[in-house]
């Protein structure tokens, strides 16, 4: 579904991604863990073109988004095509980023109507079904400022799903939440995983990584140190840095 090859990215001369490669298959639920500043968010944001890579190749479902030639020149496909390719990925942010001037329902139907050109009538049943799924149907006409953090994040998930992505990217979806609100969001994500959604999740929730993900990727200082099936990673981390990190987290 996603093939990332040797991604490199600098910010102001500092290398944040030092050649990151990862293959994500259909139905994979991959947790990305690692210390703060290790480049997890940057990696995720490079995949859907919120950041541009300096070198490497990215292909989404076999379609090239960016590639680097033998001379080391990295090129992206034209903007419109890049946008079409990236639409296959939905994204959920740590800070929710709901549209504050729209109600919950409007947040969800905005992109299907504006981007896909669907009629309101066509998207409404789907939107309501999504709201029911995340348990927020009764909030459909509320503005985001009236919702709790957990509710906001569930709306954000529903909003992303309304575009029917094949892959969902999550960047620390529960980190901005009070501890007692993380459960409801994780439950929604777990449900998605059970429906075989392909997911890439940057998280500090080790329980989620262990119990829900099919594989865990440990990143440190701009590199993937270890990528293993979830069970193995937690019971038997190979690399000393992974072991050290997990000891601190658990």
């Amino acid at each position, binding site marked *: 579904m996603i093939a990332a090859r040797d991604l490199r990215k600098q910010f102001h001369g500092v290398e944040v991604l030092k050649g990151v490669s990862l293959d994500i298959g259909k139905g994979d639920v991959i947790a990305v863990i690692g210390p703060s500043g290790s480049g997890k968010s940057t990696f995720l944001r490079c995949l859907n*073109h919120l950041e541009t890579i300096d070198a490497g190749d990215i292909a989404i479902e076999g379609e090239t988004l960016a590639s680097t030639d033998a001379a080391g020149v990295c090129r992206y496909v034209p903007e419109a095509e890049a946008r079409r390719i990236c*639409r296959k990925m*939905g994204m959920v942010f740590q800070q929710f980023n709901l*549209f504050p001037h729209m109600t919950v329902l409007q947040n969800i139907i905005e*992109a299907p109507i504006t*981007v896909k050109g669907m009629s309101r009538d066509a998207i409404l049943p789907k939107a309501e079904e999504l709201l029911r799924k995340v348990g927020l149907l009764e909030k459909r006409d509320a503005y985001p*400022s009236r919702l709790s953090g957990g509710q906001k994040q569930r709306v954000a998930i529903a909003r992303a799903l309304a575009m029917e992505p094949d892959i969902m990217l999550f960047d620390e979806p529960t980190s901005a939440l009070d501890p007692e609100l993380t459960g409801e969001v994780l439950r929604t994500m777990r449900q998605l995983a059970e429906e075989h959604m392909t997911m890439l999740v940057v998280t500090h929730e080790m329980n989620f990584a262990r119990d829900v993900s099919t594989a865990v990727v440990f990143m440190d200082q701009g590199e993937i140190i270890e990528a293993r099936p979830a069970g193995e990673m937690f019971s038997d981390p190979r690399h000393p840095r992974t072991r050290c990190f997990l000891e601190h987290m658990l």
Partner: protein
Amino acid sequence: MDYIFQILGPLLDGTAVTLQVFLLTLVLAVPLGLALALVRVSHFRAASTLVSGYIWLMRGTPLMLQMLFIYFALPFVPVIGVRLPDFPAAIVAFTLNYAAYFAEIFRSGIQSVGRGQYEAARVLGLSYGQTMRRIILPQVVKRILPPMSNETITLVKDTSLIYVLAMNDLLRAARGIVQRDFTTMPFVVAAAFYLIMTLVLTWGFLYLEKRHAVYED
């Protein structure tokens, strides 16, 4: 009292001129200001710099000077030189000047919307234009209502500057009567007219602010 009714006619005529300048400027300068702001925040460096220069020029010189320039000096400028009658000249000067102020208000409004909104729109597949139209500008409207209210009230009062082109706006009409009749009463009535106009504007903006208060950022 009779005297007031007597001078009401010419003062109302003056008010009509004032309102015309005000409304035309508003209708023309708001879209122009928005367009300038969009160029200003765009990634077209050269165009953005050009707009900055324009805003600097328009805000850095007196409106009265700009008006005099367009009316008296523009006819002698090569290529673009045209002789405009007084009313169009005033409208052009007011529009060009106020567009610069409105552009700055729009710009700061646009830049006050967080990056997360652009990113959320982008990952949902919205183009830059769609993001501006559907996500950013609707939020900007709410944020700029207070400064826009200020600026439009200033505009009502600035219209009195057109007296330098010998146009009979409210203030000039009042002054004419004052000089004729040796009484300050027309000034008092004119002040009342200005106050009514700005009061209506204040109410209008308060109403808009209330309507936009249904959501919080």
